[in-house]
């Protein structure tokens, strides 16, 4: 009994010694930051960064090969955390969300034939471009849904893809998957969209869909910020210029433009705080603000379109939310 314990104990001791030596002698140098970085990355391995999963990105970040903002789904929070670990400046990140630029459900944009093939948009487009009459329309066979690593895009009973804006991280997997190229990443704070990508003439669009853009240019003429331009017979919003004021949606005759803002508030100037710098009057696109220099300014509520440009321009935060203005449909995109 005792010799056995002794022998085994000695063997164990020797083995432990060998392992201890090996672990010191053959240690693999790992940048400790890689593990830290893996800890802050989302860990869903979506591939939106272009690397083979979060570990590979962590490695690339530690080696300085990737920018701190490389993780798109992580957004500003992850970028900040990554920058903190690496000891660099994160720079600016814009949170984007996917927007499906089609609202042609079968009742307004009918099919031209029965598609009986593989239930996948990319397979369906091989058969004469897909079953929908509109060659740009969402077919609702769910390639985007299956591509989304965040369960954030779903085909609804209206056979259209809908983005869950809460879950969407803007990784762009659906953009890649859509054979019709009708999904787009838009800054999350832009809330007015033209939900059509059919550039054909109005008559041709009308023939295939009653909610498609017919190129009437009313939105282009209405936009106070020059944010809408025509691409052939399709209106497009420049997200850099758009302020989501929603005026375009009110004039669109085919309801192609969606306005997700439920309630806007007209500007109200706190006359005690106003220093009369005239900055608000200069940025107002509809000349709704008046007043003498160095004197308190006033907003004409009849003219105000609630675009909030003045609020942002005011150096002393003297412009607040005034009367509510209900304009948007507020429905989910």
């Amino acid at each position, binding site marked *: 009994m005792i010799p056995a314990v002794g022998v085994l104990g000695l063997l164990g001791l020797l083995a432990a010694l060998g392992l201890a030596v090996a672990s010191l002698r053959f240690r693999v140098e790992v940048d400790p930051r890689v593990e830290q970085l893996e800890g802050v990355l989302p860990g869903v391995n979506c591939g939106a960064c272009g690397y083979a999963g979060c570990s590979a990105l962590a490695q690339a970040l530690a080696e300085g090969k990737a920018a701190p903002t490389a993780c798109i789904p992580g957004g500003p929070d992850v970028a900040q955390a990554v920058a903190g670990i690496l000891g660099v400046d994160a720079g600016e990140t814009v949170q984007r969300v996917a927007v499906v630029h089609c609202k042609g459900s079968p009742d307004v944009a009918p099919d031209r034939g029965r598609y009986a093939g*593989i239930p996948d948009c990319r*397979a369906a487009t091989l058969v*004469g471009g897909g079953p929908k009459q509109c060659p740009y329309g969402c077919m609702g066979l769910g390639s985007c849904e299956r591509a989304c690593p965040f369960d954030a895009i779903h085909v609804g009973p209206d056979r259209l893809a809908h983005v869950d804006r809460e879950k969407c991280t803007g990784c762009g997997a659906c953009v890649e998957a859509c054979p019709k190229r009708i999904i787009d990443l838009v800054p999350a704070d832009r809330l007015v969209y033209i939900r059509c990508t059919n550039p054909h003439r109005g008559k041709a669009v009308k023939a295939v869909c009653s909610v498609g853009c017919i190129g009437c240019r009313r939105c282009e003429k209405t936009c106070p910020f020059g944010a809408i331009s025509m691409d052939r017979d399709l209106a497009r919003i420049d997200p850099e210029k758009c302020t989501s004021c929603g005026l375009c949606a009110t004039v669109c005759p085919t309801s192609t433009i969606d306005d997700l803002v439920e309630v806007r508030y007209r500007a109200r100037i706190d006359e005690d705080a106003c220093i009369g710098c005239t900055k608000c009057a200069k940025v107002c696109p509809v000349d709704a603000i008046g007043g003498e220099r160095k004197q308190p300014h006033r907003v004409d509520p009849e003219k105000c379109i609630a675009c909030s440009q003045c609020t942002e321009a005011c150096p002393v935060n003297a412009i607040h939310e005034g009367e509510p203005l209900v304009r948007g449909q507020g429905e989910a995109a």
Partner: protein
Amino acid sequence: MAARSFPLGGVHPPDQKHLTAAKPVEPAPLPDLLVVPLSQHIGAPARPVVKKGDRVLAGQAIGEAVGFVSVPVHAPTSGKVLRVEPAPHPLGPPQPAVVIEPDGEDRWADDLEPLADPHGADPDEIRQRIQAAGIVGMGGATFPTHVKLSPPPEVKIDTVILNGVECEPYLTADHRLMLEEPDRILAGLRVILSVFGLDKGYIGIEENKPDAIELLGRKAREQGFAEVVPLAVKYPQGAEKQLIKAVTGREVPSGQLPMAVGAVVQNVGTAAAIWDAVSAGRPLVERITTVTGEGVAEPRNLRVRIGTPVRHLIELAGGLRGEPGKLILGGPMMGIAHHDPDVPAVKGTSGVLLLPRDRVRTAPEGPCIRCGRCVDACPMGLAPTTLRTLIAHEMVAEADEWNALDCIECGSCSFVCPAAIPLVQAIRYAKGRVMARRRKGG
């Protein structure tokens, strides 16, 4: 001697050629409108050279070739250009087309000079005529013919095969052409042979056309530069690689073109069109189309001007019989189903097939029972069910390793599958994904 064949796979669909095999080709009267797509070939679409209101003559170029892998498009008859705009296209979404209102006079332009000595002309001159005449592979693939006749200098072509197999069920357009105009075909073959400096070519014909084998065989023996090779009745005997294997015993290696084994295959209709171009200066503006199926009242073989709407052809075949189930351009195995009878017949439209509702299989897709019939049927030695499983899981790299790109899309796998699984459709999809992945360099 047993007829030659390709060794691997193949199927025997009911051929249904009796509907039209004995019916001579009749010219189809001009329709009220011709819709002539600017893209009727593989490669860059032609650029329109006419505009609304222009008067055109038959054979006048209305679209010019854009680059080498492209061919011009010609007015099929004289008339007025009504518009140039996207119109229904047999291969997919609407594409730009020239819409012509025929004036009924059918006056011809003489833009294209015939060659003084078609059989002794310079090969480059012949190729140039063939491109100028807008000739493409008329078996259905519509690859520009002059490109096929221009192999790189290091490639030696020693075998020219004319494809008169017509293995697609229902279709009899090539059969009728061989019976009615064998001299045009043989003269065209002689022109092709002269391009490659060869003195003998082959014509492959399936044994279900004994009259064509007999007639062309006799003419070929008389003229001395051609040999008719009778082939076993098995689909897809007329697929390019299978035909080369059957006639020459050579196997085109995976991922390569027929020229890799020194062979060039041309459809018999293409050969006839080549002869028209070099001997008479006639561009490709008409073809023989079989309008057939149990869904039309009187199936017929028609000589059709390019751009004739399918609706017009169906009317010429006596209209619909029973409730229509499916409209297919081409044959039932590789043709493309279409929803719109206003789609025009184009250079590659060998057939217009109408199936009544009760002949269209609508069985729901079942689970794969691993019977292996698709593997046995595949003439390329692929494993369709495996490819389909791989692509269903987006395993694109693995689909590539399983040689998805070697699929010739003949549809034999889908035809034999007892579970009604859309196998060839899945592989077609897989091929697109594999090619996209290769382009990305993945």
